[in-house]
């Protein structure tokens, strides 16, 4: 196979920079693997390592600092047949830490090459996430205050199965890169090297020292010891699980079969508390309205901590287009819990004699002008989670907004058995 190096753009690193060696080794790896440029995507990060994509005749994607793995993920999910290689420096490793952890956990078949030279070369030699505390860098004393990260250990504990530390000088680097690329999952190669332009201006670091650093390191122990029960590769697993997902049902569609009872806009609020199925009752009321060709809107309010506090549904049913969706003067209030009543107590002031309030016997309502109907849901043996639906039956019994046939139709549309029969039974028993 021919070299994939871009003849028009030879590597332009400082003399002696390890990056150049790695470029050559990566090219040799591609040749050894018989890969064509159109089979590879190189996703490069920011910094001197960010130039990598320009030296190769492959697909290339160069983006923001630390985000290389995010683009690589999108590309690999879209084009799983591509060999996807992300390159980043120790700078990208620091700023993109969350993405690196997530990539380790995900195990999508991407190879990450970390070009680790212990400092920010491009911006002038500041300390990075891997700079030793005793190094002399352009960040003054700040690196003394922080511990460098051992990215191999971190990647391992985040779930990466293929993690290896290499020297940019080792003669079999191409073989190591090939193994990492062939690994069917996320692989991390931490390649230690020398930044001649910056780091070694003030610190002693030689290929020999790097070799010792790499060979002494515990990351060695991970080499090729992939667990006997390897994790599934993300994309293939994604496809496997996707196949079992049942296609979503189309939304319920309703053709109007009834005539509206009152040809005017009706504003209804259901005031309850968490667990009373207030929102679901609201939806049923709207669906019932739709069976009579009315337009409907529903707004819900509940605590972010969903299992406590008020639960409120605000509903509008109207033969006309519904524009403003706020409710200031409700025509109907269903009051089923004091939490909800408390949250909307200002609404009671706006009621008139035409307003109908249906409230549970034990739920106190503020004094107001409306006609209030007290219902002893509890006494009738109805559980609090059914009070909202039961109150709709009371409303239907009065032929206000909806009638029982409309309500039953809505229940049939919305619920499957056995809830359907139970609900119908409940509303039929409420008729008085």
């Amino acid at each position: 196979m021919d070299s994939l190096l871009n003849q028009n753009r030879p590597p332009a690193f400082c003399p002696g920079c390890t990056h150049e060696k790695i470029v050559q080794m990566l090219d040799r790896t591609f040749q050894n693997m018989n890969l064509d440029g159109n089979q590879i995507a190189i996703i490069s990060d920011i910094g001197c390592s960010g130039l990598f994509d320009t030296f190769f005749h492959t697909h290339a994607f160069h983006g923001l600092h630390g985000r290389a793995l995010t683009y690589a993920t999108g590309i690999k999910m879209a084009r799983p047949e591509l060999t996807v290689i992300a390159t980043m420096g120790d700078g990208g490793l620091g700023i993109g830490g969350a993405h690196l952890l997530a990539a380790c956990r995900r195990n999508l078949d991407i190879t990450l090459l970390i070009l680790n030279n212990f400092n920010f070369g491009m911006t002038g030699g500041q300390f990075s996430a891997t700079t030793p505390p005793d190094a002399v860098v352009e960040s003054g004393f700040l690196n003394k205050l922080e511990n460098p990260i051992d990215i191999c250990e971190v990647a391992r504990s985040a779930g990466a199965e293929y993690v290896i530390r290499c020297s940019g000088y080792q003669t079999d680097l191409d073989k190591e890169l090939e193994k990492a690329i062939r690994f069917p999952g996320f692989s991390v190669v931490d390649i230690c090297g020398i930044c001649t332009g910056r780091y070694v201006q003030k610190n002693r670091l030689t290929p020999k020292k790097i070799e010792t650093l790499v060979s002494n390191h515990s990351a060695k122990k991970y080499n090729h010891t992939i667990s006997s029960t390897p994790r599934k590769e993300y994309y293939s697993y994604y496809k496997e699980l996707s196949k079992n997902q049942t296609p979503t049902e189309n939304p319920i569609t309703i053709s109007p079969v009834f005539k509206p009872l009152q040809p005017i806009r009706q504003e209804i609020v259901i005031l309850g508390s968490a667990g009373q199925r207030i929102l679901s009752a609201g939806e049923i009321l709207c669906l019932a309205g739709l069976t009579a060709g009315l337009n409907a809107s529903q707004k819900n309010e509940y605590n972010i901590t969903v299992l406590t506090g008020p639960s409120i549904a605000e509903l509008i049913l109207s033969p006309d287009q519904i524009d403003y969706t706020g409710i200031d003067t409700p025509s109907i209030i269903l009051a089923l819990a004091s939490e909800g009543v408390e949250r909307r107590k200002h609404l009671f002031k706006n009621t008139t004699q035409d307003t109908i309030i249906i409230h549970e016997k034990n739920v106190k309502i503020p004094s107001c002008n409306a006609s209030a109907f007290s219902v002893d849901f509890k006494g009738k043996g109805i559980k609090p989670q059914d009070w909202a639906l039961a109150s709709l039956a009371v409303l239907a019994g009065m032929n206000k907004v909806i009638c029982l046939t409309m309500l039953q139709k809505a229940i049939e549309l919305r619920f499957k058995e056995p809830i359907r029969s139970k609900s119908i039974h409940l509303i039929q028993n409420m008729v008085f």
Partner: protein
Amino acid sequence: MTVSFMEGNEAIARAAVIAGCNFFAGYPITPATTIFNTMLKLLPPSGGICLQGEDEIASIGFCLGASMAGMKTMTATSGPGISLYSEQISFAIGSEIPIVIVDVQRLGPSTGSATLGADGDIQFLRWGNSGGLPVIVLSPTDITDCFILTIHAFNLAEKFRCPVFIASNKEIGMTRESIDIRNLPLPEIESRKAAPHTTGFQPFAVQSDTGVPDFLPIGSIIPIRQTSSTHGPDGYITNDPKAIEMNRTRLAGKLKNISTNHFFYETHPEKDATTLLITYGVTARSARQANREEKQSGRPFSLLILKTLWPVPQDLIQKHARGMKRVVVVEMNLGQYVREVERVLPGIPVQFLGQMNGCLITPTQIKEFLSHG
């Protein structure tokens, strides 16, 4: 007639799939989460991809990668997430990556109120990118708009190769409404223009007078380049001021080629009106009601509802404001789009009614403002 009953967010998700969206990534955030929930139900069973990123930056990053690999992508968030998207948005603008970004706005600043509505991001969507190059922002007023504008958003993103925002609002996204999906006037689906052949293909070379480069995806039979760096037509970094200038001028100018039938709006002109009310988003609904009621009371005003906010439909605004004694801008913030209206209407008095307390501006507030103004 057959109607369904769903949230604005669900309508956006369902319309996205109709528009050809086959890749979605997002990070949970109220009030946008139900878009993610719906996409997760819709895409995987039909062969598409729906991912939950480790954060917002990753979510949009996934989309940018997938878009350049040829997929139609969408992401959805709210104010705090849009802020995190910011630099990826700049990338998508400068490197011409089609993507639809839904901002279901909530009351800010910052984390603000997760469950209260606002239209507080309108200038941020336009200017929240480094470099200040233009974007497209569409603004739905109701569930039907959510559906139709989402399809337009994809078409525009594909046609102009740029990010297109849907500036929704908690009050639309999380409000359920009846919608007659089967009878909607849906636009035809458009896709980015593929390069006719691979020989001599340059990823940012422009062949036509649209100002938009032809596209070949990463994964094509020839290597394709994408870069966030300042680049020439070949997709390599360039320092040549001429090449840079040409590229920037083209990026700034290509959205000028949006034809008038790609500006979305609704008008309610009244014959004897001396006031033009301009609004958008959920506030347009109160304005419609006020418009009807004032007409019945013999105090008619004209109403212009903008559904394309950016680029500013300057000619349209000027045309409708012609001969008016005053223009009133109503929006759910403390004065954002009114700046644009003032800018394009020199010499016409522009008044402003705004509110930023999580409550809808009511038809009554509008009517009172008009009568006292």
